């Protein structure tokens, strides 16, 4: 176990040449359902990659796969140069689930302490990081309140804090701004830009098209495939429009046609 984590950190350090995330021909079948169907994707270090697509298009499955929670039925997923699922990569990943997965009967600080501890942080370093992240998500004043008494926005902020407190190199954020007011949403995205600046790569799924415009690159997921992938500007140009919503409808219609002809 010790050996594998050592070789893990070694290859993680030398993975500079390769993109942070590489998906090659990824297929995932649940029963009769083909959730992912030959998906190819690369994500580079320090970018914010936006996953857009209708409900049930496979966004969460892809997120869970990148988090090592789902094994691909076929194809390969490499994160930090290692094939998933790999426990050695887990420490470098932060995962914010769609539900605000928190222990409601614990305080905010106790939640953060638990997640820090399972990522191996302890002592003063742990407390320092917890205070830092509480400051950043503006929960310092409520740190010692039980989460059950938190509002939806507060829970969402704490959930984000729990995913980032161990400073992951890859942050997987599954619809982080659901139920969050516009002001706080802006604060979230400012924070994401700041994290990119610090070298953290973010994969984020969203239904808000104004958020999609703030991503460095976007992937439109539908029928388990990437129908379109590129910077927001490239996608707009390709669809011949200046409106993100029109662009997505254009790519979705094109994808449906391909599906029919195939």
């Amino acid at each position: 176990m010790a050996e594998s984590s050592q070789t893990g950190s070694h290859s993680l350090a030398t993975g500079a040449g390769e993109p942070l995330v590489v998906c090659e021909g990824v297929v995932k079948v649940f029963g009769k359902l083909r959730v992912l169907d030959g998906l190819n994707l690369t994500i580079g270090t320090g970018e914010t990659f936006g996953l857009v697509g209708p409900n049930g298009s496979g966004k969460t499955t892809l997120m869970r796969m990148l988090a090592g929670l789902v094994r691909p039925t076929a194809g390969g997923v490499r994160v930090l140069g290692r094939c998933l699922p790999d426990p050695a990569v887990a420490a470098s990943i932060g995962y914010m689930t769609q539900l605000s997965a928190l222990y409601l009967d614990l305080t905010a600080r106790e939640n953060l302490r638990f997640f820090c501890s399972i990522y191996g942080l302890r002592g003063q370093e742990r407390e320092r990081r917890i205070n830092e992240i509480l400051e950043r998500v503006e929960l310092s004043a409520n740190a010692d309140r039980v989460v059950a008494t938190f509002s939806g926005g507060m829970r969402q902020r704490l959930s984000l804090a729990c995913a980032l407190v161990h400073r992951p190199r890859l942050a997987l954020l599954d619809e982080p701004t659901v139920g969050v007011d516009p002001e706080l949403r802006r604060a979230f995205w400012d924070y994401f830009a700041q994290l990119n600046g610090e070298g953290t790569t973010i994969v984020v799924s969203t239904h808000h098209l104004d958020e999609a415009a703030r991503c460095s690159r976007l992937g439109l997921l539908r029928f388990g495939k990437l129908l379109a992938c590129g910077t927001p500007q490239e996608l707009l140009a390709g669809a011949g429009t200046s409106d993100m919503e029109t662009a997505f409808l254009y790519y979705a219609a094109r994808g449906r046609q391909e599906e029919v002809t195939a």
Partner: protein
Amino acid sequence: MSGTRILALTTRIMRQIVRDRRTLALVFLVPLLVMSVLYVVLTGSSGAVPRLALVRPTGTGSEALNLLIDRLLPPASRLKTMTIAADEVESVLNKGEADAALIFPTDLAAQLAHGEHPRLQLVLEGSDPTVAAAMRESVTALVRQLDVALVQAQSQRGQGQQGPVPAVNVPATSVLTLATPRYLHGGPDYTFNDALAPVFIGVFSFFFVFLLTSVAFLRERSQGTIERVLASPLRRGELVMGYVCGFTLFALVQAVVVLLFVIFVLRVHYQGNLGLVFLVAILLTVSGVNLGIFLSTFAQNEFQIIQFIPLVFGLQVLLSGIFWPVAQLPAWLQPVSYLLPLTYANEALRDVMLKGSDFAQIAPQLAALLVFMLLMIGLSAVTVRRQVA
């Protein structure tokens, strides 16, 4: 108060129940199952024939006495008897081959002939107070009948008739004395509670830990925290161990509280090694935690967890020898008892607390509990691994 709104709610709830097949099945089938077992247990206790070992008189003139004893013994359907040697009494009782031994003096015939008052000794195994009390009663009745028969024979002889029984030269209404019964374990002041108290420790450590773990693990799933935990570097084994440790510690505290309550508040008699009591509690707790993790994956909500209680708990309470010794269950049901961990825990806890058994004496029960625990760990490990599809 709106009738339509109430109706809408009622319809919705009924629809939800009908859609929940497991709830339907458990709500209707488990009570039938438990009631059937209860019925069998309560009516089928005809197998509960107490067993009496006899140390018979062997001296000259004993044949006629033994014939008389055999004639007076209740039918085998009410009392099973066996004949043993005087030096076998303790081992036969300790092995559980008999519930009590009645020791006649070897020279009973000679003592009667000399007009002495022979002393009969009853030795009770004693760890089950109900059996001991019943045994004491039926042996006292047997000795009284024998006494009456001997006195009658004497008076018949006085009238010149030659009875089959040797001469008794005492003009008394009573010739036999039954000495104060000796208890191998427990004593006459042992009550049903004394036998029940040790098993409380086992029942509580198993049951509450099972219930709490399954609900806690279910919450992990429904709140989504399990996803976070599994995405972290935490290993599956560590997850299971974390649960085991957290709840074992909790269960040990619980066992201490139950033990203190039992000894100091209920003032239950006890002897034996407390370390062994805790060892049994630990084995049961670890089993309970892992069974909880395993079964929680078959439940979608807390309500469905509650439905597991009659299945996990009801059956064990009825079949593990808490209220009725396993030996008193119908023969076809006894193998089921020996598949249940509480059966072994109850035996071990009673042996330690009532009989003062040591490690070697309860080793078979401990081994069975260990096997069950490993099995449960295996099941929960598979369960946790399955979380990664």
